[in-house]
């Protein structure tokens, strides 16, 4: 067998793998890992969505609901008051959570919507960057 024939011969030999008796188990294990990964991703996206939703809600509720006239429309004042109340509730809930985690010095109620948005965006960007770095290290 010449060199020219030998190289492809060896490559074909590498491609011919002995059948593994536990292939079904290997596939099942892999599927389970993929499934748990997908679940983890779904939970992560869900949490991110919830945070985004809270920020969006906060943004909506802090809008100046003055619709342009001196006369306020019926129900607008009530809605505005309710919105401010919910807004305060969210802020105080967050503040309570921060106190529980020992980072109460960070006054969430004092942060504006845009500040909250940029903090959340920076956190997401940092997470994405960490993921990319990790992935590039793996391969």
């Amino acid at each position, binding site marked *: *067998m010449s060199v020219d024939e030998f190289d492809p011969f060896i490559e074909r030999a*590498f491609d*011919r793998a002995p059948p*593994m008796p536990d292939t079904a188990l*290997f596939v099942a294990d*892999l599927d389970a890992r*993929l499934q748990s990964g997908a679940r983890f991703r779904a939970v992560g996206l869900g949490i991110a969505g919830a945070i985004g939703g809270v920020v969006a809600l906060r943004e909506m509720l802090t809008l100046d609901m003055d619709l342009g006239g001196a006369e306020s429309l019926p129900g607008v004042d009530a809605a505005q008051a309710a919105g401010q109340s919910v807004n305060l509730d969210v802020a105080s809930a967050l503040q309570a959570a921060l106190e529980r985690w020992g980072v109460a010095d960070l006054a969430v109620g004092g942060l504006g919507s845009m500040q909250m948005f940029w903090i959340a965006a920076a956190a997401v960007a940092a997470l994405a960057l960490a993921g990319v770095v990790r992935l590039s290290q793996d*391969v």
Partner: protein
Amino acid sequence: MTQPGLSDRHDVELAALAAASDRRAFGELVRRHSSTVRALLRRMGAQPSLADDIAQDAFILAYERCTEFRGEGTFAAWVKRIAARLYLKRREKEARYVSEDSAEDQVSSVDPLGRFDLDAALQTLSEAERLCVSLGHGAGMTHPEIATALNLPLGTVKSHVKRGLDKLRQILNPEAGETGRESHVG
């Protein structure tokens, strides 16, 4: 993970389905190629359990990056390259460098029916030769890619590949001599 009709589809079609998060299609790809990937890792010198772990990691990475597979080469070759790189990364982490240790004792690499047993033949190569031949001819990496991956000079990689192939050729055709460049067997 089986689905009627998937077994008839081409790898490229299955990869496209997998890129759209079809895990069943990907399962079919795994079923088709896992033995080859696992065998390559074992031939590179990984213990069976480690080879299986790395093969799983390689397939998971392949699933996540399925959109990058364009079908220029075969799917199996693509995953084998991923697996080979993951194995080298693992070796690097465990500070296992390529050693020039001598090969194991000569074992029979041709079975009673005269068929060439690659696994047995690879055991006769040194670790460096086995790695270089496996990466080049098993994972389809070029010599410069192997040199980079193993952090070895290109000339050294070429020597390892040549010596390894010479040994394999000699096992297949003992009368061929050391280089066997002009030899032919039936």
